Structures are given as C-alpha cells and as structure tokens.
C-alpha cells in the first residue's frame, strides 16, 4: 500500500490546511429578516428571575440568530447613530440616558430583554420604537447594544467604530459581566 504522502508531517499539514479551508465559510447575510418570522418580545421585560427555578428559559431562535451576527451588529451600529440613540446614551457612555457599556442593566442585558426595552420604551424618557422600526431593525440595534459592553465574540464586532472614539476598539474590550435584572438598584 502506498500513501499519497511521503511522511506523516505532510499528511498533518494537508489535514490542517483542509481544516483551515473549512473555516472560510462566512456567515450569510440575512437582509430580509426572514424566514424566521419577525417578532419582538412584547409586554413586560422577559425576566431572569423565576420562582422555584433560577434558570431563565433559553433564547428563542430569533434572538439567537441575531445575537452574535456580524452583519446585524454593524447594521445596528449604523441605526444607533441614525435613530439618535447617541442623543441620550452617547456612544455607549451614557448622558441623559443610562450608559450601555457597563455591567448594569435595569431591564435586563440579554438580547431579548434589550430588544423589548427598545420596542416598548422604558420610563423616564426611553421612547417606544415598535411602530417606528421594523422588528429586524430592533433586533439589530439590540445586537449592537450588547456589543457595547463587550459581550460579543471579537470576530463579530467592527474593528473600527463609525465615529471618533477615544476608547480602545471593541475588538480589544474586556466583556462586562451581565448582572441580573434589577441589580442596578442595589
């Protein structure tokens, strides 16, 4: 029997090369937000505190599809400026509105909770965007807001912000731990 490779070294190199090629599969852009069927969580914020069981329910397929998606995050970054989120939240540092790049989340820091806050609005000034933005855009914004506190893998965030910034790029950010909803008041 004759092997196509002269030694085990070249065989290993060939396998490594194949493995590298396998990584070339880029995520595909879902520009229509379909066929998932767009829905944004409605009503109260999806809470993380549950009686008898401390485990919150898993994310829906919808939320999971947007969560670490590079295209959704970069579209969200564009919307964040265009919809004037910067007017109150600045570029994450906060101002009139709370900062978005720290660990504190008044209404929860999971992507579905952030999406609910954007869609429903919150007391003391956060407007409801439900009928102004599409569900897809709200998910995109939520995906970007998550990335502000470094919760997104580095290969999914933009290496360079759209605006001037004196902080390190998001790719060099250390993730902030997500505290459970309500802990900001403590």
């Amino acid at each position, binding site marked *: 029997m004759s092997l196509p490779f002269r030694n085990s070294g070249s065989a290993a190199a060939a396998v490594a090369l194949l493995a590298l090629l396998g990584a070339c599969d880029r995520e595909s*852009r879902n*520009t229509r*937000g379909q066929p998932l069927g767009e829905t944004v969580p409605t009503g109260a914020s999806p809470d993380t505190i549950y009686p008898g069981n401390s485990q919150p329910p898993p994310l829906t397929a919808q939320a999971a599809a947007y969560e670490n998606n590079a295209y959704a995050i970069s579209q969200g970054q564009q919307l964040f400026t*265009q*919809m004037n989120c910067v007017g109150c939240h600045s570029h994450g540092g906060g101002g009139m509105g709370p900062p978005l790049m720290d660990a504190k989340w008044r209404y929860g820091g999971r992507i579905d909770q952030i999406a609910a806050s954007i869609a429903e609005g919150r007391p003391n000034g956060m407007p409801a965007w439900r*009928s102004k*933005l*599409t569900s*897809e*855009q709200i998910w995109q914004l939520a995906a970007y807001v998550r990335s502000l506190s470094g919760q997104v893998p580095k290969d999914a965030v933009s290496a360079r912000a759209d605006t001037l910034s004196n902080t390190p790029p998001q790719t060099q950010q250390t993730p902030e731990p997500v505290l459970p909803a309500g802990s900001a008041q403590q």
Partner: protein
Amino acid sequence: MKPGRFTALVVAGMAVSGCGGIQNALGGQAVQSRDFVSLFAVFMVVCTVMYFVTVGTLMWAVFRRRRATEACTVETGRHEVSAPGSRTALVVWTTLIAVGLSALAVASFFTDRSLAAAARSPKLAITVTANQWWWDVQYTPDNPSHIIRTANELHLPVGVPAEITLKSNDVIHSFWIPNLAGKQDVIPGRVTDAQILPRQIGQYRGQCAEFCGTEHANMALDVTVESMADFKKWAAAQLQPAIAPTTPLAAAGFNYVTTRQCSVCHNITGTPANGQLGPDLTHLASRKTIAAGTLPLTRGNLYGWVADPQSQKPGSQMPTMQIAPQDLHAIVAYLETLK
C-alpha cells in the same frame, strides 16, 4: 454560422452597444465631456500611430533578410557600427516621438483651459450627497426659500454652467454622468466638486463609478437636460409642498406613511413625515425611476418595492416591513398622488 464568427459578432455587438444612448462616455453632450472626447481622440490617434510604427519596425527587423556583409559578424568578429540609413531612421524616430509627445501636451493644455473656462462663473449651485445606495440632490440657490430637495434625479437647464458640490454620508462613491461629466470621487468628510455645462437637451443616466457596497450597480441618477423654461416649470413644481390626499384610500396611506416606519427615514414636505435618512418623497410620482434607477416608476414596481425592498435590492437600507395588504394598497395609492 460558425461558432467563432458568432462569438465575434456578439463581442462586436456588445462593443457597439456601449457607444450610444443615455450612458455613453463618448457622447459629448456637455462642454466638459466634449473636451474629454476631443482629448481622447488626439491621444487615440497619436498612440495608435506610434504603436503601429513601433510594432511595424520590430516586425521588419525580425523578418528582413540578413545582408551578406552581416552574415559572418560573429565568425569574423568584425562589427559594422552603422548599417546604411540607420542614422536617418534614428532622426525620423526621435522627431516622431518629439512631435507626438508635444501634440499630447498641447492638446492636454488646451483641454485644461477649455475646462477652466467652462467652469467659470457657475449660475446654478447643486449639492449632491452620495449615500449607500442613492443620491441626495439639493439645489442651493442664494435665496434659501428656493432650496429644492429631491433624490436620484438631476434637472439641468441647457447652456447654464452648474457647479455641483459633492459630499458623502458613508463610504467613497464616484459621481459620473458619462454623457456630461465626471468622474469625480465623492469622499466622506471631504468636499469635492464637479462642473457641468450641458449643450444638448436630452435624458442621460449617471452611475456611481466607485465600488461602494453590495448595491453599487443599482446606484444610478436620472439626468434631464431641458430648456430654461422647462427647468423653471419643474423647479416651481418642486418648491410646492406635497398635495393633501383626496380619496379615503390615499388618506389612509397618508396616515400610515406619516405615523409609521416610513416617516422615520423619509421626508415629505408639508406633512409630519420629516425623516432625513432616506430619499425625499415630496414629489416621488414625478420621477422616472425609484430606488436610484433600479426600477421604472410604475404602479406594479411601487407595490413590489414597498412590499419587499430586500428582494428588489438586497442589502439596501430600506427594510422589508411586512406591511398588511390593505395598508400596502393605501400606501401606494398615497405615493401615486405625490406628483
């Protein structure tokens, strides 16, 4: 027909089809593009002549018969320094190069002067802002109450020099109306400009000429060069606010457009819709195309575009909104009234 001949015909057909119509770099319907076409002709003639002289001489050198005296240069070691006539050839060759280069330099100089003269004292100020993937057009006369804002269309009066200020909101684009002028790069954070002095009434097509993202190919600009009277009529109509809806269906559309997602990005002058991110829709129905030249403006295309922009122009900034059928009817009915 032989396959070879067929291919040749197809290629020739494609080449010729590039030489006519509304998007033609050799059209010369403005002073600027005419100057460039003349310069192009001079360069073409000079370079073609020089090319054939060079290649011809080379071929002659390769194929001519060797003379008897040269036959045994290698063997005898005797080198004839100059073959008869080579000095004359050298002089002719040097003269040709000098004359050719001078012709190019002189032609270039006069083109430059002509371009500068055409750009002097512009009578019409226009600001064109490039976006992914559409053109925001604003006529900015001295009197601010005469500012016109439109999108993806440019109306120019014939014989009036126009100064076009170019800006970009996102990435690098390039402003190019092949029949009239360009190209000029449009760079974010920087202001560039282009001048157009149209000479011939007609319909032309501008096109972004710098790859700017997935929908770069669908980033066109309808250009209308018209008489001064027609231009004034158009400008007066554009200055009017949007017409109020008259039918119940159009009124329902007005309600949807001014209170829901549409008004977040689109502006309709005279209504509560005042978004500044997307194309101005005040006189949408008076345009020839929608979505930056992607589709002709027809009722069917309006339905298709409003219902699902992402299937017409995937990646465009207008999202698919999942509008209910009755709302879609109302929106299109209202948009069609925006003459």
